[in-house]
C-alpha cells in the first residue's frame, strides 16, 4: 500500500501519455509458454510486452513495480462468453406482430444468423466487463448464442471505451447449438427434432460446397451464365472458419465428432463435462474442447424425496475431474464460464484443481490454450515478448482462494481491481484506463 502510494508522484510527468512504459521487476513470472522465472522482469510498452527475462534492462522513465511477493500471469481468457454483447431489453409488444410462418425446410435457413458478428455487437458499457476484469479476465471470446448457426464470435479485450479498439480477432468461429426447437401446433417449424437439426447442418454444408463451386465458375467466366443468388447464411458460415459444437455427454461427443468430421471445417467442442470418460477418444481424434466450468449441481430447492439417478450422481461427482483427465491425456482444452460470474467461474476452475489439475495447467487452460484454440496464440495467452500486454499480477497463486489480484494490465493499460477483489491501490493517473476504481474515490 505504502509502496503504491509512493508511485503516485512518479508518472505524473507522463500525464498526457495514454500508455506508460511499465516495468515489473523481481517478480515470479508464470510465462505459461516457457519456464517459470522466479526473479524476472517484464517490460510493457505501447500496449505490448517488450521484454521478459531475468536480466532485462529497465528503460528510463518506466513506472517500476517492485515484484517481490508478486506473481505475473498472462491475462485470463474466458473461452466462450457473451460478455460485451448487451442483450436487448424485452419489449412487450403493444400490437401483435405478424407471425412469421414456421420454417418448412433447410431452404428457409431456420434459426440461422451465421452472418451476425459479435464484433459488431460489442459495447464498452456492459457492466460485466468490469467484473470480468476485476477477476483477472483480460479477454473473452464472446459469441451471439441464439440459433443453430448463431453467429460469429470475437476475441475482445476487456478495456477501452471504443469497441473497435477492444476487438482482438474477428471472426473467432461460428457458435452452434444442436437442439430441436420442439414446439406445438402452428409454432412448430423445421427443424423441431434433433435428427432434423443434424439433417439441416449436413444440408447447409452441402449447399455451401455447391455455392462455392457455382460462384467460382461464374466468376471465372460470367458471360452466358445465370448469376448465382447471394446467400448470407452461407457467406456467414464460410467466413467463420471454425465451428463451436455443443457436446456434454459421452454419446453427444461421439455423435458430434462424427458429424463434424463430415463438415470440412475445423471444429471445437464445447461443454464436454463427461470428458473424464472420453479423453482417450478426444486425444485420438485430436479434438480441442472448451470445458464448461459450470459443474453439474443439485438443483436448488429441489424435491427432497426425488431420487436422483446413479447416472446423475456419477456425472456430478466426476465432471470436475474432466480437466485433469484431459491434461493427463494431452487433449487441448480451455475453460469457459458458461454464463457464470467471473467469481463463480474461478471457483469452478478451483474445483478442477482440487480434482487433480495442476494450478499452472489451469491457468494455461484460461490463457494459452484458449488462445491456441482460437488461433491467436501469436498475440495472446502467455507472457512472451511481442504479445499483447495483457497481464494479471497477484499475491499468491492466482487461482488460490486466498490470493489477491494486485494489478491488471490490458493492452498495457493499468486497471485497479475493485475494492472487494483487492485492497485499494492508487494508480498512476497516466497509466489508468477508463473508469478505474482509484483510491481517490475512496
Amino acid at each position: 500500500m505504502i509502496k503504491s502510494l509512493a508511485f503516485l508522484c512518479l508518472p505524473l510527468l507522463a500525464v498526457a501519455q495514454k500508455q506508460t512504459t511499465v516495468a515489473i521487476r523481481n517478480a515470479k513470472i508464470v510465462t505459461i509458454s516457457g519456464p517459470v522465472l522466479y526473479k524476472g522482469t517484464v517490460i510493457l510498452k505501447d500496449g505490448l510486452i517488450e521484454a521478459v527475462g531475468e536480466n532485462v534492462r529497465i528503460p528510463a522513465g518506466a513506472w517500476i513495480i517492485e515484484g517481490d511477493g508478486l506473481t505475473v500471469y498472462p491475462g485470463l481468457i474466458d473461452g466462450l462468453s457473451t460478455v460485451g454483447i448487451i442483450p436487448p431489453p424485452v419489449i412487450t409488444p403493444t400490437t401483435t406482430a405478424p407471425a412469421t410462418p414456421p420454417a418448412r425446410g433447410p431452404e428457409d435457413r431456420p434459426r440461422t444468423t451465421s452472418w451476425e458478428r459479435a464484433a459488431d455487437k460489442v459495447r464498452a458499457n456492459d457492466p460485466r466487463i468490469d467484473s470480468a476484469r476485476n477477476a483477472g479476465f483480460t479477454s473473452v471470446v464472446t459469441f451471439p448464442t441464439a440459433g443453430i448457426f448463431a453467429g460469429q464470435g470475437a476475441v475482445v479485450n476487456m478495456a477501452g471505451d471504443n469497441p473497435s479498439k477492444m476487438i482482438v480477432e474477428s471472426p473467432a468461429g461460428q457458435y452452434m447449438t444442436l437442439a430441436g426447437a420442439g414446439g406445438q401446433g402452428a409454432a412448430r417449424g423445421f427443424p423441431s427434432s434433433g435428427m432434423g437439426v443434424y439433417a439441416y447442418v449436413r444440408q447447409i454444408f452441402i449447399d455451401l460446397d455447391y455455392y462455392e463451386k457455382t460462384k467460382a465458375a461464374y466468376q471465372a467466366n460470367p458471360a452466358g451464365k445465370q448469376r448465382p443468388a447471394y446467400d448470407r447464411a452461407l457467406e456467414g458460415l464460410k467466413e467463420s472458419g471454425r465451428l463451436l459444437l455443443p457436446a456434454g455427454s459421452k454419446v453427444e461427443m461421439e455423435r458430434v465428432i462424427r458429424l463434424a468430421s463430415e463438415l470440412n471445417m475445423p471444429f471445437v467442442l464445447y461443454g464436454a463435462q463427461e470428458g473424464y470418460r472420453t479423453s482417450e477418444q478426444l486425444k485420438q481424434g485430436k479434438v480441442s474442447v472448451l470445458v464448461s466450468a459450470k459443474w453439474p449441481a443439485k438443483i436448488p430447492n429441489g424435491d427432497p424425496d426425488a431420487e436422483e439417478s446413479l447416472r446423475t450422481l456419477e456425472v456430478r461427482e466426476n465432471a470436475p475431474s474432466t480437466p485433469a483427465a484431459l491434461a493427463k491425456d494431452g487433449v487441448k482444452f480451455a475453460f469457459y464460464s458458461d454464463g457464470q460470474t467471473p467469481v463463480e467461474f474461478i471457483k469452478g476452475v478451483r474445483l478442477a484443481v482440487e480434482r487433480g489439475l495442476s494450478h499452472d495447467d489451469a491457468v494455461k487452460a484460461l490463457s494459452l490454450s484458449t488462445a491456441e484454440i482460437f488461433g491467436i496464440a501469436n498475440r495472446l495467452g502467455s507472457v512472451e515478448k511481442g504479445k499483447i500486454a495483457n497481464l494479471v499480477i497477484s499475491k499468491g497463486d492466482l487461482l488460490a482462494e486466498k490470493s489477491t489480484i494486485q494489478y491488471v494490465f490490458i493492452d498495457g493499460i493499468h486497471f485497479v481491481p475493485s475494492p472487494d477483489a483487492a485492497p485499494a491501490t492508487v494508480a498512476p493517473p497516466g497509466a489508468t484506463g477508463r473508469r478505474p476504481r482509484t483510491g481517490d474515490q475512496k
Partner: protein
Amino acid sequence: MKIAKFLLFTVPLVAQDSFILRNVTIHPVTSADIVGGSIVVANGKIVELGAKVTASKSIKVIDGRGLHVYPGMINCATQMGLSEVTSVRESNDTNEIGEFLPQVRAVVAVNPDSEHIPVTRVNGITSSLVLPASLSETGRGAGTGPQSILRGQSAMIHLDGWNWEDMAISRNAGVLMRFPAIVTRRAAFGEGAIGTPIPYNEAKKTYETELKKVEEFFDSAKHYQAAKMAKAAGFKLNVQLDAMIPVLEGKVPLLIAAQKERTIRDAIAFAKKQNVKIILLDVTKPGKALDVIKQNNIPVVVGKPTSLPEDEDDPYDASYSLPGQLYKAGIKFAFGTYDNQFARNLPYEAAFAVAYGLPYEEALKALTIGAAEIFGVSNEIGSIEKGKSADFVVTDGDPLEVRTQVKMLFIRGKNVSLETKQTRLYEKYMNRK
C-alpha cells in the same frame, strides 16, 4: 378335498334357469378343490356344490368333463362401460369437471353394450370396478391447473346385464379422490418427455393450499351431517354434501391413487385425521410406507405389475415383485389394469407377480375373493360358495396361463356368450370368399 368326497347333496327345487354342471374340478378359492364335482345353479345363485350332488332329473345338465371351474375374476381398476374409444369424445362419459363431486355416480353411466365388456370377460373376468375418472387425470401428471379432487362414486359391476341396474353389485364401492400431492415437475407430453421442475417450496405451498381446501370441504360435510342428524330447522338437502355422509360414516371408502411413499403417507395421515376409510390405488413404489400401510390396515390395489419401474435406478423387477412384497408384509391387496383396452390381461398381470415371488394361491385369491373383500362384495362374488352369485368361469386349465381357453362363462347363472368383437371379425374375414 377329503371332506368334499363324502358330501352328498340333493337339490330340492328346480328353477327355470337352473342347471347342474357336472364332472368338473372346482376351485372354490375359499376352500379345498373338489375333483370330479358338480355345481348346481338356480335363480342366478350357486345352490349346491360338491363331489356328489344329486339333482332333479328335469334339471338341465351341462357336462364339463376334464374342465376346471374358477370364480370369475375381478378387475379392480377400469372404466368399463364409461369409455369406449378414449380419443372419440362422444364415446366417453368420464372425468367430470369440478373440485368436489362426491355425488357423481359412475354406475349410472355404464353402457352395458360396450365392446370392451365381452372382450374382457372371455378371459375369465366377470366383475370390474368402474372408476368415474381416469387415474391419469387423477394422480399422475398433475400440475396442469385447477383439478378435481373428489371425482365421484365408483361402482362394482357384473360384466353382463341388460342395464346398469342388472349389472350393479355395489352402486357405491368408493369415492375416487385425487389426493393433493407435492408435484415438483410440470406435466410433459410425448415419449420420454420430462417436465420442467417446480421449486419444492412452491410445490409444497400449492399442496398445502389444496389440502386446506380439502379439509374445509370435509368440515362442511361434517356440519351438514350433524345438521341432518339433528333435523335442524331450515335444513336443506345438498346432494354434494349428502354424498359425503356414507364416507364420513365409514360405510364407503375413499379410493386414493397414491403411487409413491410420500403420497401414501400423506393420504394415510389424512384418513386418520378425518377418520375415514381409504383404499389405495395404483401403488407402485411404496418404499418404507409399506409399514404404514400395514399398521393402518389399508387395502391396496397394486399398480400394474407389468408397468415399468418408477425411477431410473429401480430394479427391473420392481413392479413384478411388488405384489409379492405386499403379501409378505401382510397387506390386503387386489389387481387392476387401470384401463379398458387391456383389462382382459388381468390374469397375466397377476401371473407376472407369481413369477416374481407371490404364491400362486395368493394371486388367485387377490383376483377373486381378496378383491371382493376389499370392496365389500364378498357376500355376492369372489368365490364358489353356496348362496353366492353364480359368477364363474369354466376353463381347460389354469386361468393365469396364457394358453388356457375359457370354455364356458357364467355370470349371475347365465351362460354368457363367448362371442366378442374379435371373434366376429375373425369369422368375417375367415368367411371371405
